[in-house]
C-alpha cells in the first residue's frame, strides 16, 4: 500500500526505499539553506535587500580578525553546552535545562573565583572548571534522578529549574553577593588568576574556545570509544534492550543528565572566567536555549555540533552589523535559527517521502509496490 497525503497540490508519496545515507548527511545543510532563503524572503518583504543584509551579516561575523574572534567567543558557550545537550539527547532524555545549568555553573565558578585566593592560575583555572562542572551537574542530575526514581517528565523539571536558577542568582546578586557599594546587580570581580587567558592578542578571544575544542575530542572519545558512552547510547536507542543486556538504565540516565548539565556548567564557567570576570544576572543571554538548536542541527555528532555552534555564533555576531549597516532588525537571525530547527525536523519526513508538485494525478493505482 502506498500512503498518500495530499495538501492541496503538494503530492507526498512514500519512498520505495529510504536513501538515508546521502540525504542524512546533507539534511542539516539543506535546512540551513532553506532557512536562509525564507529569511531572505522575510527581509525582502520588509523592503530591504536580502543580499546586502546577508553580506553585512557575513562581514560582521568574519570580516575582520576582531569580528572573527567575537564569533568564536559567542561560539564557545554554544559549543560546550551544545555538546552537553547532545549527551542528554543521545540517552533519549529531553533537556530544556541548559540555560539554568549554565547559570549554576557560572555561579559556582564565580564563588570559587571570589573566595579561593592566593593560588596560581594553573591551579585556579582547573578549580573553576571543576566548580562550574559541579554546579551544572547538580542542576542536571536533579531532573535525571526525578525521572529515574519517580518517572517524572524531565522536560517540565528542566524548564522549572531554569527559572529557579535564574531567580536564585538574581537574589544572590540583589543582596549577599552584590559588589559594594551596590549600585548594580553584579558580583565583585573574580581573582585575576582565575581569568581565562586571551589567546589572540589584541582581541577578547579567550582560552575557553580551546577548552571547547578539547571537549569536542573528549565527547567523541566518551560517546564512541568508552563503555560509558556505549551504555548511554544503548539506553537512548532502546532502554528495554539495554536493560536486557545488563545495563543499569536508570543509573545511566542520571549519569547522562549530570554530564550534560556539567558541560553546560563549564560553558557558564567559560563565560564568567573568559568574558565577564564577574557574575551578572543575565550573563547567559539565552545560550542554553540556542544550544538545543545547536545540538540538533549538529545531529548530536561532535563535529556537527562544532559546525552548528560556529554558525549560530556567527549569526549572533553578524546580526548587529547587519542591523547597523543594512537597517535590517537583528532579530531576523532568531527567525532563521527557529526555521533551521523546524526544517531539520522535516528531514526524516523527506527521507521517507517524495515531495513533488502534482500536475494531473494519474487515477490508476499500481498495487505491486510495497513500501
Amino acid at each position: 500500500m502506498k500512503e498518500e497525503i495530499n495538501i492541496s497540490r503538494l503530492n507526498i508519496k512514500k519512498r520505495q526505499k529510504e536513501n538515508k545515507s546521502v540525504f542524512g548527511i546533507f539534511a542539516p545543510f539543506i535546512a540551513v539553506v532553506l532557512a536562509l532563503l525564507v529569511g531572505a524572503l522575510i527581509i525582502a518583504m520588509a523592503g530591504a535587500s536580502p543580499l546586502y543584509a546577508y553580506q553585512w551579516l557575513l562581514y560582521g561575523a568574519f570580516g575582520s580578525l576582531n569580528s572573527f574572534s567575537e564569533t568564536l567567543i559567542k561560539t564557545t558557550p554554544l559549543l560546550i553546552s551544545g555538546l552537553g545537550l547532545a549527551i542528554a539527547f543521545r540517552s533519549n532524555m529531553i533537556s530544556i535545562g541548559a540555560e539554568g545549568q549554565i547559570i549554576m555553573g557560572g555561579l559556582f565558578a564565580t564563588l570559587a573565583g571570589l573566595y579561593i585566593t592566593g593560588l596560581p592560575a594553573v591551579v585556579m583555572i582547573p578549580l573553576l572548571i571543576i566548580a562550574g562542572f559541579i554546579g551544572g551537574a547538580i542542576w542536571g542530575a536533579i531532573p535525571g534522578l526525578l525521572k529515574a526514581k519517580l518517572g517524572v517528565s524531565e522536560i517540565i523539571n528542566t524548564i522549572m529549574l531554569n527559572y529557579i536558577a535564574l531567580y536564585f542568582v538574581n537574589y544572590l546578586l540583589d543582596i549577599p553577593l552584590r559588589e559594594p557599594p551596590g549600585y548594580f546587580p553584579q558580583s565583585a570581580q573574580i581573582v585575576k588568576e582565575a581569568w581565562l587567558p586571551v589567546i589572540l592578542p589584541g582581541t577578547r578571544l579567550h582560552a575557553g574556545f580551546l577548552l571547547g575544542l578539547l571537549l569536542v575530542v573528549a565527547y567523541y572519545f566518551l560517546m564512541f570509544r568508552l563503555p560509558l558512552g556505549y551504555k548511554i547510547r544503548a539506553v537512548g536507542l532502546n532502554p528495554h534492550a539495554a536493560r536486557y543486556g545488563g545495563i543499569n538504565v536508570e543509573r545511566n540516565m542520571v549519569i547522562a543528565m549530570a554530564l550534560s548539565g556539567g558541560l553546560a556548567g563549564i560553558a557558564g564557567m567559560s563565560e564568567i572566567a573568559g568574558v565577564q570576570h564577574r557574575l551578572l544576572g543575565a550573563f547567559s543571554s539565552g545560550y542554553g536555549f540556542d544550544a538545543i538548536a545547536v545540538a540538533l542541527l549538529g545531529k548530536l555528532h561532535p563535529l556537527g555540533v562544532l559546525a552548528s555552534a560556529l554558525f549560530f555564533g556567527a549569526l549572533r555576531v553578524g546580526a548587529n552589523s547587519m542591523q547597523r549597516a543594512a537597517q535590517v532588525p537583528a532579530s531576523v537571525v532568531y527567525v532563521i535559527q527557529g526555521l533551521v530547527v523546524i526544517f531539520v525536523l522535516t528531514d526524516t519526513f523527506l527521507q521517507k517521502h517524495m515531495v513533488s508538485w502534482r500536475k494531473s494525478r494519474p487515477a490508476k493505482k499500481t498495487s505491486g509496490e510495497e513500501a
Partner: protein
Amino acid sequence: MDWSKVFNEVFIIGFLTASVRMAAPLLLASLGAIFTARVGIINLALEGIMLVGAFSGFYGAYLTGNPLVGALFGMAGGALTALILGFLAITVGANQTVAGTGINIFALGITSYLLSVAFGIGNRPSAVPSFKEIPIPVLADIPIIGPMLFNHIGLVYLAFLLVPVVWYILFRTPFGLTMRSVGEHPKAVDTLGGNVIRTRYICVIISGILAGLGGAVLSIGQLSVFMENITAGRGYIALAAVTFGKWNPLGVLGASMLFGAADGLQLRLQAVGLKIPYQFLLMLPYLLTMIALAGLVGKTTPPAAMGKPYSKQDAR
C-alpha cells in the same frame, strides 16, 4: 520591616485582584494545552504561540483601534503558529519537544522582527486601545470579593467561564470522548472509524486559539503595549500548570490561580517596597510544580500516547 503594610485591606484586595488578573492569561493558555495534551501532543510551543498571540493581538488593536478586533487577531495568530506545531507533530511525525523549541525561537524572532519593521528599530510603539474593566453591577460592590472577582476586563471573565465549558466538552461530549481516546489509544480510535489525524489537528488549532488569546490578554489586556519577549516564560508555566492540574480543567484552574497568586504577591510586595527577597516568591510556583510532580499531589499519569506520532502503517 513594616508588616502593617502587608496586613491591611488595601494590600490584600490589591493582591487578590492581581492574582486573578495574572492567572487569566495562564488559564487561557493552559486550557488550550489541555486540548493538545489530551490527544497526546506535547505542546512546548505554547510559549511561542502566546507570544505571537500577544503581538498579533497588539497589532490588530493598533491597526483597527479596537481591542476586540485585536483579540481576534491574537486568536488567529495563535492558531496559525499552532498549525506549524500540528504539521510537524502530526503530519511529519517529528519530535514534538524539539518542534516546540524551534517554534519558540522562531516566534521570538518573528515578533521582534515585525515589531521593528512596523515601528522602526528600537522604537517603542505607543500604547494601543486596550480593554477596560467591566464592573459587574451589584456584585462588584461586595467588599473584598467584589473588586477581586467582579471588576476585570471581559477576557478575564471569559477565561474563568471557559473552565466549566472545557470540562463539559472533555467529559460530556462525543468529541471529548474521541479526544481522550486518541490520547490513550489512537489505534483503537482508528479501528472504530474515528479520525485520529483530524481530531489532533482540530485540538491543536483550538489550543492555538486559546493560547493566542492568552497572549493577547498580556499585550492588550494588561499593558496595552507589546514588548519583546513579553510572555517571559508564561507559556512554559502554562504547560507546567496543565501537568500540575493533571490535564483536568478544574486542576488547571487551581494551578493557574497558584501561579497567578505568586506573581500577584511579588508584584504587590515590590509595590509596597518590602525588603523581602521577592525572588523566592517568584521561585515558589516552579518549586511547587516540581514537588507536586514528584508525587506530593498523587500520581500524575499523562495520556498513554503522549508524544507519539500516529501513522496508520506503523501503529502498534
